């Protein structure tokens, strides 16, 4: 039984019902201590079931061996403290492939799993080198959220098949070694060097093991929610490495303490656009009109943008900060990114 499936939530609901029945039936037959025990079990089953449903919605802990203290049997590679494994995804019929890999980051010191989307036709011509997207997930979340909740593989397959998007390799890395440690893709002072991992180690892995373009014209970023901030921030901080980024309901600041105060300066994108020269990159900002925090943040960024930074905006009528909104945004964002990245090179 998977940790992020419907089955375990149903099992939790059965446990909730079971403890309620136990409470009703045994209340008159047992002493106060047992009553308290059953009542505690009842409350615990409700809390656990609610937690399991939340986990199913966010995919923060996509499998059993991502739980703290649980290790997959037979694993021999060095593993990070809690992000221990990545569950292979079932094959889809669109002709694309999703690989589960592990990136041993020399620059950051982080070793984290990653999904890799290989487009249909990836193996057709060994000389062909594909444009690349790095896809950042939200918080709480995991790379698996892109597949289980946002159906990214189907959207990519469909846009590529329709000719609206070039065949593109898409990387879905983890952004933290601990599921509940929010790095916002920054280098935390005295903490994980997530920015280094994402901008040095992940690209180095892709260049070494995948047939991808190595120039900035072929590299882009996409992310939703906290991942949207990641996409914008990494684009603005590394314009020599990425040509375009799409932020879906993203923010303009990390919302965490980085540890060196840069959440108010170099890691605050509104501050960057106000105080630093704007880079020649393309940025796509999408939000739902009723998602007030990201609407305000996106509008701030769009209003501060000046040439050569090119900003494109798109808005949903409503949808909040939800999977439904991000699903609606995915296809237009993928098309826009392909339109702003260099083509596959042969």
């Amino acid at each position, binding site marked *: 039984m998977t940790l992020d499936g419907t089955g375990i939530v149903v099992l939790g609901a059965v446990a909730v019902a079971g403890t309620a029945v136990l409470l009703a039936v045994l209340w008159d037959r047992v002493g106060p201590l047992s009553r308290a025990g059953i009542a505690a079990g009842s409350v615990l089953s409700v809390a656990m079931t609610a937690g399991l449903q939340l986990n199913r919605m966010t995919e923060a802990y996509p499998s059993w061996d991502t739980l703290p203290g649980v290790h997959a049997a037979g694993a021999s590679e060095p593993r990070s403290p809690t992000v221990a494994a990545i569950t292979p995804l079932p094959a889809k019929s669109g002709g694309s492939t999703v690989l589960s890999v592990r990136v041993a980051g020399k620059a950051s010191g982080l070793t984290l799993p990653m999904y890799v989307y290989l487009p249909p036709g990836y193996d057709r011509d060994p000389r062909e080198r594909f444009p690349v997207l790095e896809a950042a997930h939200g918080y709480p979340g995991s790379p698996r959220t892109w597949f289980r909740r946002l159906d990214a593989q189907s959207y990519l397959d469909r846009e590529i098949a329709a000719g*609206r998007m070039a065949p593109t390799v898409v990387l879905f890395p983890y952004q933290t070694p601990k599921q509940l440690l929010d790095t916002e893709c920054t280098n935390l002072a005295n903490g994980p060097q997530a920015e280094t991992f994402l901008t040095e180690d992940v690209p180095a892995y892709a260049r070494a093991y995948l047939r991808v373009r190595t120039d900035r014209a072929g590299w882009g970023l996409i992310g939703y929610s906290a991942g949207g901030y990641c996409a914008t921030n990494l684009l603005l901080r590394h314009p*020599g490495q990425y040509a375009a980024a799409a932020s879906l309901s993203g923010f303009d600041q990390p919302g965490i303490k980085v540890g060196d105060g840069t959440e108010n300066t170099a890691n605050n994108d509104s501050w960057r656009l106000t105080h630093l020269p704007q880079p020649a990159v393309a940025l796509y900002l999408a939000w739902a009109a*009723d998602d007030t925090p990201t609407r305000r943040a996106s509008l701030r960024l769009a209003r501060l943008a000046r040439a*050569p930074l090119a900003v494109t905006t798109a808005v949903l009528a409503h*949808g909040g*900060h939800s999977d439904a909104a991000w699903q609606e945004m995915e296809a237009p964002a993928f098309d826009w990114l392909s339109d702003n990245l260099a083509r596959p090179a042969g």
Partner: protein
Amino acid sequence: MSLTGVPLIVVAVLVTTLTIAATWWLWSRYGRWRLVSRVVGVLLAETLTVFTVGLVVNRVEQFYPSWQALAGNTGTTVVAAAGHAGRIDGMVHGHGAAALPWRPASLSAWRLVATPVVVVPSGYLARRSVTFPAVLSLVDAGRDGAAAVRAAKRVATVSVVVAPSAGTTAAALATLPASLDEDVRTMTHGWAIVATARQAALAVRLIRSTPSRFGALVLVEDSATARPPHDRPGGEVAVAVVRPAPRHGIKAPGVPPGTAALTGSGSRAWTTAVEWAAGECPPPLAAPVQLPPTYVAAGKPRRP
């Protein structure tokens, strides 16, 4: 009643409290039926408690600001962008690449030596919903035009081959991309320029005057020992230089950092240059699906 409003939370708290109180009051009443009332009461109280906590969290975090959002209704449908037919589409025949003389309304303002030539790629006519990036070739009059056209026919971009005169200015030529957009199915960004050494300064000025249009510049040098100009277009424009292979024993001077050094001479130089330039462009793409654009006061959304 709003999903994130205080009234709903107040109602939820009241109903939850009443349910807990009723469950407690019924706990030891109604004989054997009390088992049913206990189970129903406990389950109702638990469900309502979770629901109330969820409402409070949702009010704080605004995940689902409305009932519509909760139901997964975004009130928005992505639509395929309307493709535009190029004015010269009717002049293209057959399936292969085609070269056509191009006489837009603003031609005289450009003060060119000869009529520009537009080259559409193979399959241009058949792929009517597809827009193409463009390569602008700035050639020396009477020298490189034919080679540039031949090279342009080999790549999957639209190309326009232009022979500027001494009187051609970047400011005047800045209207060329928009003119081409009207006549041919071209993208409004991601273009590349291929220029001879004599046209290099004009190319750099043109890129600077239209910063969001061009993403790459290739200079075609006649001499293996030519030193590429250090005046770069700036921004993040990719730059390459094509020079003949140096003779044995002669070392070609280095190129500025970030500049790709390519080798080729004569018509092969143009093939190399145009192929490299095309490789830096976006691919030809069908009309994208889009979300509605929004008006942003100071920013200038490029397109939806």
